[in-house]
């Protein structure tokens, strides 16, 4: 009778499968991250079916982020901010945080300047998108790729 004599290939296959399973189990313990598709759904929920064009919006984020827990972020939109031509709303979306929305801001001709700053959390290296809704119904966007070295959301709270 042939004894079970594992070939080199089958040993490696089994080891690989086990290692793969281990990695998978470890990843699944972390909170599920959003996906670019979820971001698209969030964009549609915020602005409806409007066509989004590139331009007019400037999203300022550091290209390399050392600490994702607090990232300074400024959005500026090129607009005269007049009663007949102004920015109605600005939204920021992300691709890979647990949730695709970051902030939604409403403003009007009263602002004088279509710009705001805040500080945001980034859980991973990803693309951040800012979309501005104009008074005429058009939507303009800017996208920035940000590298994050220390991600938000993963560190343990202090006891």
């Amino acid at each position, binding site marked *: 009778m042939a004894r079970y004599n594992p070939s080199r290939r089958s040993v490696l296959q089994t080891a690989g499968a086990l290692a793969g399973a281990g990695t998978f189990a470890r990843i699944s313990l972390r909170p599920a991250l959003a996906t670019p598709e979820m971001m698209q759904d969030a964009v549609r929920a915020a602005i409806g079916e409007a066509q989004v064009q590139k331009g007019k919006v400037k999203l300022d984020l550091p290209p390399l982020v050392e600490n994702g827990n607090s990232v300074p972020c400024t959005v500026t939109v090129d607009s005269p901010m007049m009663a007949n031509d102004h920015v109605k709303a600005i939204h920021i979306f992300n691709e890979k945080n647990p949730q695709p929305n970051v*902030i939604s801001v409403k403003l009007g001709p009263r602002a004088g*300047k279509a710009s705001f700053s805040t500080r*945001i959390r980034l859980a991973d290296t990803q693309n951040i998108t800012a979309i501005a809704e104009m008074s005429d119904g058009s939507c303009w966007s800017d996208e920035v790729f940000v590298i994050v070295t220390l991600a938000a*959301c993963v560190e343990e709270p202090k006891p």
Partner: protein
Amino acid sequence: MIGRALTHVPASAKRGDIIEIKALISHIMETGYRVGITGQPIPRDIIEDFVCTYNGEEIFRAKFYPAIAANPFMSFFTVATESGTIAFSWTDQHGATQVQTAAITVE
């Protein structure tokens, strides 16, 4: 009371000037995605709405999501039209509201 709030409005401005307004409030902005030292999830606790009014007229409104950093900070602009009060209000997910006001003199 949600937390200690710090706001900055220029004390005086010329009529028609575009002024920068800054507002910060101390708040943990717990995302709801972290786990505690014993492994149980830490419940979400965030400020959801921020509104700024100028003599009662709304000039800026923001909706915060958990991706806003702790101690949410906002900086934005408005046109100085008349002397009066600029009021800031923050509302958390439980409905608690905190209001802070600042005076501005416009010449």
